């Protein structure tokens, strides 16, 4: 992939050029061109706002995501293992799952007020069900040989969970976590637009409301895309670690 960076980059440059040209040829269009956006980003950096907002958004995502992990994953693993547990909770989670995290906003504000806690709650809600389902599915996919070998060696239940179950579900779990991290990033932007006053989502909303600074709006979008991509790459590199990555090299 290293050698093939030239053409994709040219393609992106081409798209940017088309964008810039179409903006220039339509004066009066509120939409800013890429150059204006770049200037907007520079301005944000100069005022120290960019770093501050990115940190705020990442902070919230991390909290919501981690909380969802430590609740949903063990629960999902348990439900995947005990079929009765799964039967008990399945209908409930099937109904709650399609409810957009944003639909929880009124309840979030009711319970947590306006501020960090509600947005973290929203991210938590958005991450909980995907992680739950991934954990359940991962347990179902453990090859039976591993379970038998674990029992053969006389492992206690806790030892079995730690030394066979967790490593066996890791690859699939990590992929699910990466995808869920992406979801969390999508949610944080929306949550911030409504319920807080810092962060990238807030930036976008505020820049529009308080002065129609659409260059900053798009700048915010670009930064959101960039940081989201970086988070994704970071999770991918975690997946690559050899002791987790055993699955792809299996067959």
């Amino acid at each position, binding site marked *: 992939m290293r050698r093939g960076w030239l053409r994709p980059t040219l393609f992106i440059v081409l798209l940017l050029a088309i964008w810039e040209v179409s903006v220039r040829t339509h004066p009066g269009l509120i939409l800013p061109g890429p150059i204006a956006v770049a200037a907007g980003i520079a301005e944000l950096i100069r005022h120290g706002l960019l770093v501050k907002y990115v940190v705020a958004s990442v902070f919230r995502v991390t909290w919501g995501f981690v909380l969802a992990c430590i609740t949903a994953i063990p629960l999902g693993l348990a439900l995947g293992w005990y079929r009765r547990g799964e039967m008990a909770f399945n209908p409930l989670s099937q109904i709650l799952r399609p409810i957009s995290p944003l639909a929880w906003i009124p309840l979030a504000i009711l319970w947590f007020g306006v501020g960090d806690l509600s947005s973290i709650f929203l991210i938590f809600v958005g991450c909980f069900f995907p992680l739950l389902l991934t954990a359940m599915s991962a347990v179902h996919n453990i*090859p039976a*040989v*591993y379970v*038998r*070998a674990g*029992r*053969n*060696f*006389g492992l206690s239940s806790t*030892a079995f969970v730690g*030394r*066979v179950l967790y*490593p*066996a579900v*890791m690859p699939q779990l990590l992929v699910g976590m990466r995808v869920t991290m992406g979801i969390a990033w999508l949610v944080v932007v929306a949550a911030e637009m409504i319920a807080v006053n810092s962060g990238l989502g807030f930036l976008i909303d505020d820049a529009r409301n308080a002065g129609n600074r659409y260059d900053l709006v798009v700048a915010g979008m670009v930064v959101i895309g960039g940081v989201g991509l970086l988070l994704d790459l970071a999770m991918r590199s975690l997946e690559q670690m*050899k*002791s*987790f990555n*055993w*699955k792809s*090299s*299996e067959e």
Partner: protein
Amino acid sequence: MALAQPAVAAIKSGFKLHAQQLGVVYGANGKSVSALEEINLEIADGEFICIVGPSGCGKSTLLNVMGGFLAPTSGTVTIDGERVTGPDQRRILVFQERGVFPWLTVEGNIGFGLSKLRRAEREQRIARYVELVRLQGFERSYPSDLSGGMRQRLQVARALAVNPDILFLDEPFGALDSITRVMMRGELLRIWQQERRTIVFVTHDIDEAVQLADRVVVLSSRPARIQEIVTIDIPHPRNISAPRYLELRDELLKQIGLAYEI
């Protein structure tokens, strides 16, 4: 390097494994299918037993019952006088495929059952079994770096490291190419002669059975019963062109042929 008949020597010390009137019946959707019927088998300590039979006849089921992974519908299995009620470290099952844990290194796998030992002793044992199965130099490698034959050797090492009384092998070389298979048979014999465990080996390959076993148990097709037990009285190393070898091989082939007709 002829060895004394292990079966003869061990009969004096009593039987290691005793299966009595084993039966396994599966029930699904109201229909019941009898997989095993009236299996009576006695295995002496240190013996190498092969179980052969047509595909799907229940060889693996028998192994799983003897290992304690499956509860029989009738009958009992006793090992060293004790009834088998579940899996146990004293009898380890070696699988055909995907048996080793891919997230652990060679060392990690071999040491898997050794967590109760002190570090020095554990490391010593790991080193010993790495050497036994000839995987020196690969201690830190992951199973994905090893060939199929090496992975099976790793599985055997992991099994032996916990000093089991019995080793159950379920078509362990089935997924390997024929050249590797021949090599692995030699390796297994070498290890067996050195370590002297009781081995119960399931295979559908007649040649493999005649080359390895002291006695060969022939199972009929479903519902599986013990059709015949053939004693292989050739000392190791066995010449696969020798007349006696071919005689025994033909005998077994005939047995299996009969089994299809029942």
